[in-house]
């Protein structure tokens, strides 16, 4: 039974390989539930090393849609949430899952579509553009994933006076995925899509797509940060989480956000209230 004993030894070694990892002195760390737009735009890769250098705290980012991120935090699976859907954030605070919310940064949404622009929305106002897309039944890709961008898209239809349930058809593709996959789909279908500028700027597989409508203030996209209420979930790492939030809204953190650029274009604009 020599071989059996040996293979057993090998197996227990393998098991020990994994067990050994928690034994290493883990640095202080927090889990931040955030959105696909902040992760996929590369923002976190730029700012988190700066924060870690300063405080030694490791930030583990789980990138989900805003709705999912808030749900994960409701279950107590995150210490901090950084998302972009103001009504959903206010609801989160009202439910008592966070004691407060702070502005961090903003960018804007842009309406993207194929260069030949079959619905003729180039340079039009936001409301008119959405009405024209619905009227021409040109293909439109929706995130359909309860993300902040999805909420903004649904609000835009409403504000344009388009009753989506009435006009929905084959042209409206609900993909139920993150910003990147939705852009990939739009790129291959030659469809219109509402995207946050950050993800668009860092997106590489653009194909024939281009920005057609910039709404400025009308398509304002603010991001807020919240510490999960430790009264709801005692496992929340209050000290480290608070340190991260304070750093984000500090002049240093705000500068780190402003400094993140792709091809010279900033992706996010700091917006913390000066204390």
């Amino acid at each position, binding site marked *: 039974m020599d071989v059996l004993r040996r*293979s057993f030894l090998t197996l227990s070694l393998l098991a020990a390989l994994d067990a050994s990892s928690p034994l290493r002195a883990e640095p202080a760390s927090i889990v931040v539930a955030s959105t696909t737009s902040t992760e996929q735009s590369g923002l976190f890769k730029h700012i988190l090393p700066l924060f870690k250098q300063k405080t030694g705290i490791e930030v*583990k*980012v789980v990138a989900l849609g805003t709705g999912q991120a808030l749900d994960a935090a409701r279950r107590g699976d995150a210490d901090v949430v950084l998302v972009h859907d103001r009504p959903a954030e206010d609801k989160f605070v009202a439910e008592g899952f966070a004691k407060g919310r702070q502005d961090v940064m903003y960018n804007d949404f842009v309406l993207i579509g194929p260069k030949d622009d079959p619905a003729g929305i180039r340079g039009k106002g936001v409301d008119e553009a959405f009405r024209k897309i619905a009227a021409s039944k040109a293909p439109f890709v929706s995130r359909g994933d309860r993300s902040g961008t999805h909420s903004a898209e649904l609000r835009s239809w409403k504000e344009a006076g388009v009753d989506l349930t009435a006009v929905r058809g084959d042209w409206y593709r609900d993909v139920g995925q993150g910003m990147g*996959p939705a852009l990939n789909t739009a790129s291959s279908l030659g469809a219109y899509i509402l995207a946050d500028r950050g993800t668009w700027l860092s997106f590489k*597989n653009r194909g024939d797509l281009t920005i057609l409508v910039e709404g400025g203030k009308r398509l304002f996209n603010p991001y807020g940060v919240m510490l999960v209420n430790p009264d709801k979930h005692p496992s929340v790492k209050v000290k480290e989480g608070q340190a991260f939030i304070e750093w984000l809204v500090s002049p240093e953190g705000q500068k780190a956000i402003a400094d993140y650029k792709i091809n010279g274009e900033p992706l996010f604009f700091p917006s913390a209230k000066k204390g």
Partner: protein
Amino acid sequence: MSQTLQETFSRLWTLDRDVLAIAWLSLRVSLTAVGIGLLLGVPLGALIAVARFPGRNALVGLLNTFMGLPPVIVGLILYLALSRSGPLGALGLLFTPTAMVAAQAVLATPLVAALTRQVIADADAHLGEQLRSLRLSAPRRAGVLIYDARFSLFTAALAAFGRAISEIGAVLVVGGNIDGHTRTMTTAISLETQKGDLSLALALGAVLMGLVLAVNAAAALLRGHAVKAYG
């Protein structure tokens, strides 16, 4: 398409230490899961093969069904169990490599058990009569047959490894694809695809295939050695 492929090859040379760390994590998680799968699945499969008890056929059917367990469902169930609001939340294991090992072990174990059962049942058809005439207990008979068929069980281990290293549904849900912590080859490939960086995604895919090839080659060498030395 050809441009993407060209870029893929040039990207392969510039893959950095991050990729190495990700590859190592993938390997570590999946090998550990397979190790656990073997520890649980081999004895279980062998016992089911040699023992005679009521409901055995149903159990075999169930085992074979579990080979087709959707990874994302395993991930989801484990997520709900490990969530802070779940029954095992106090362990704080969600979004850790340990949670990913657990998820992949759940996927690997039925596969190992089902394949072992088949191998041992075949061995039992040859030797079972003799062993039973020696009045050995079922666990003893299972032990002897495992030893006898040990080289055939390599395939079960490799199949389990293939299932573990290539799945994404479970590790994504319970691991959270956290950069530098729970990002594996498959979740990294998916992320780059989502970012539209298709050439980097393909380059990572090539690395993953290389990894699987290396593990299979190592297993084949090991098996060859073992057969020569102990066969």
